[in-house]
C-alpha cells in the first residue's frame, strides 16, 4: 500500500482551464447512466423482447375485434398501423418511469454526490433523458426487423425521421418524469400515483392501441387536446413514408412543445434538487 500512497501526490490532477461545456458533461452523465444497463445483459435482453411480446399478443386481438374489417378500419395493413403504436408506447413507458431511478439515487446519496461535482446542472437532466434513447433505438430496430416478414413495409427515411421525432418527445417526457421525481422526493409513493394516473388516459385518448373512430364523440374531442395524439398520428404517417404530411408537422410541433416544457421544468427542478 505504501507504494500506492506515495504516487498519489504525484498525480494531483492538472487544473482544467477550458470552460466546462454542457455538451461534455451531458456525455459524461449519459455514459455513466448507460454503464449499468450494458453490464446487465439479462435485463437488457428482456427489455428488448418486451415490446415484441405485446405486439404478438395484442395484435391478433386488435384484428379480431375489428371483425375482419381491420385493414379498412385502420386505413391499410394492421401492422403498418400498429408497429408505430408499439414504438410510441415503448417510448412512453420507458421515459415516463425514469424518475424512479433518480428517486433511488436521492435515497442512496448518489445524486447528492453528483451535485457537489462541477457537472453543469442541466447536464444532470439532459444526460439522463438522452440515455433512455439508446435502448429505445435498439428496440425500434428489433421490432422493425421482426415485423418485416409479417408484411410490415419499411420506409427507411420516414422511419429514421420517425425515430428522431420519438427521441425529441422522449427527452421531453423523461425530463418531466425527473421533475416529478424531484417534486415528490419526500413522499416517493406519489411518483407512481401521478405517473399511472396520467399515463393511461393519455395513452387511450391518443388512439394508440385502439382506433378512436369507433368510440364516442367526446373521446374524439378529448383526443384533440392530447399531445400524444399528434405524435401517434405523425409516427403512422412517417412510417408510411409520408414525410412531408401535415400529420408529421403536427407531430413535430407536439414533440417540440413537450421537450421545451420538459427541459424548462426539469432543469429548474434539478437546480433546486438539494434543498
Amino acid at each position, binding site marked *: *500500500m505504501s507504494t*500506492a*500512497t*506515495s*504516487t*498519489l*501526490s504525484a*498525480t*494531483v*490532477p*492538472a*487544473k*482544467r482551464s477550458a470552460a*466546462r461545456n454542457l455538451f461534455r*458533461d451531458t456525455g*459524461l452523465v449519459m*455514459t*455513466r447512466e448507460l*454503464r*449499468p444497463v450494458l*453490464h446487465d445483459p439479462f435485463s437488457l435482453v428482456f427489455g428488448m423482447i418486451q415490446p415484441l411480446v405485446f405486439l404478438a399478443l395484442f395484435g391478433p386481438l386488435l384484428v379480431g375485434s375489428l371483425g375482419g374489417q381491420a385493414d379498412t378500419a385502420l386505413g391499410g395493413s394492421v401492422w403498418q398501423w400498429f408497429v408505430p403504436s408499439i414504438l410510441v408506447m415503448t417510448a412512453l413507458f420507458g421515459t415516463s418511469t425514469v424518475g424512479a431511478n433518480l428517486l*433511488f*439515487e436521492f*435515497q*442512496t*446519496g*448518489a445524486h*447528492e*454526490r453528483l*451535485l*457537489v*461535482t*462541477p*457537472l453543469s446542472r442541466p447536464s444532470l437532466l439532459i444526460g439522463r433523458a438522452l440515455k433512455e434513447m439508446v435502448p429505445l433505438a435498439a428496440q425500434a430496430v428489433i421490432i422493425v426487423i421482426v415485423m418485416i416478414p409479417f408484411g410490415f413495409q419499411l420506409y427507411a427515411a420516414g422511419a429514421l425521421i420517425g425515430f428522431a421525432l420519438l427521441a425529441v418527445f422522449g427527452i421531453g417526457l423523461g425530463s418531466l418524469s425527473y421533475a416529478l421525481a*424531484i*417534486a415528490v*422526493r*419526500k*413522499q416517493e409513493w406519489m411518483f407512481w400515483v401521478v405517473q399511472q394516473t396520467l399515463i393511461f388516459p393519455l395513452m387511450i385518448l391518443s388512439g394508440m392501441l385502439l382506433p378512436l373512430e369507433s368510440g364516442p364523440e367526446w373521446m374524439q374531442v378529448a383526443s384533440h387536446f392530447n399531445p400524444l395524439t399528434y405524435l401517434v398520428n405523425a409516427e403512422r404517417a412517417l412510417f408510411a413514408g409520408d414525410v412531408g404530411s401535415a400529420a408529421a408537422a403536427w407531430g413535430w410541433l407536439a414533440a417540440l412543445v413537450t421537450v421545451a416544457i420538459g427541459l424548462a421544468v426539469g432543469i429548474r427542478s434539478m437546480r*433546486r434538487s*438539494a*434543498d
Partner: protein
Amino acid sequence: MIHTKSLTKDFVVSKTNTVHAVRAITLDVEPGELVAVLGPNGAGKSTTMRMLTTLIQPTAGSATVAGHDVVSESAQVRRLIGYVGQGNGAGHNQRAGDELYTQGVIYGLDRRAAKRRAAELLEALDLTALTSRKVSSLSGGQRRRLDVAMGLVHAPSLLFLDEPSTGLDPQNRANLWEHILQMRESAATPMTIVLTTHYLDEADSMAGRVVVVDHGEIIADDTAEVLKANLAGDRLVVEADQPTETARLTSLLDGFAGARDIQVEGGTVSARVVNGPRALPEFLRAADHAGIAVGTAQVHRPTLDDVFLTLTGRSLREAESTNNAEDAASTAARKDAA
C-alpha cells in the same frame, strides 16, 4: 480556507412557523486544520455543511470556501472541495471502479489519468479486489471507504466529511479513520478536513479543534483538551472504607484546596479538581492524616459529553431528543420548499 460571516439558514415550514436551522454562524478555518463540528442530531451541523458545499443556499450571511463565495462562485467551490455526504456517493447499480473513473473524468482528468487515479485510490483504500463489484454488493464499511475515495479523486485541499462513520462498527470506524489520516498525510500539503460527528470520542481523538454546535449556534470552539480542562475538569471520586465515615470524608473533600462542585451519591463522594492525577495522592495523604480510611479512589477524566453538559445543561443524548423535533420540522420545511 473557510470564512463564514453570520451564515444563516431558515426553513419556512408555514406562515407562522420558521425553523432557524443555522443562526448567524461565524467560523474561520485555516489551511491544514482538522476541525470536528460536534453536536446532537438536528443541531444544524449538516445544514451548515450543505451550505459550505454549495448544496443549499444560505438565507443570510456569507461564506467563502477555498477562496470563493459559495453563492456567486459555487462552480469554483465545487471544483476545489471534496465532499463525503451522509449517504453513499456511489450509485448502487454501478461498479466501484467505474464510479471512481467517472468522478475522475468529471473533475477533468483524461481517460488514462482517470483510470490510473481510480486504481491508486482503490489500492490506497484496500478496495482493489472489489473494483468490478457492484456497489450494492459491498459491505457498509467498504462502501464508506469507496465514498471517501470518491471525495478524494481530485486530491482536494479541503475535504468535508458529513458523519463519516455513522452506522459503522468500532472496527470499521477505526479502519476508515486510519485510511483518511493516511490520505491526509500523503498529500503534498496537509489536507484541511472539516467533519461533523455526534460521536464524542471521534471528535476527541481525531480533531485538532472542536466546534460545538447546538440549536444552530456555535457554543464553544477550541481544542478538545482546552474545552475539557476549562469547561469540565477532572473529577475526584472517593469512597470511605466504612459507610459511617462518608460524612467526614465529604467535609474533608469540601475543605480540600481546589475542590468544587461536591456531589454525594450513596457512599461515593466526588468533586471537580483542576489536576486529577496530582490531586488524588494529595487528598489520600490528607485523609490518612485525618484518620479516615479510604476504600476506593479514582480520577474521572472529562469527556466532551461533560463539556456539552456544562455548556447546555443537557447531555448530548438528551439533546438528541429535543433537537429531533426541530429536525422533523425542518424536513417538513424542505418538503414544502420543493
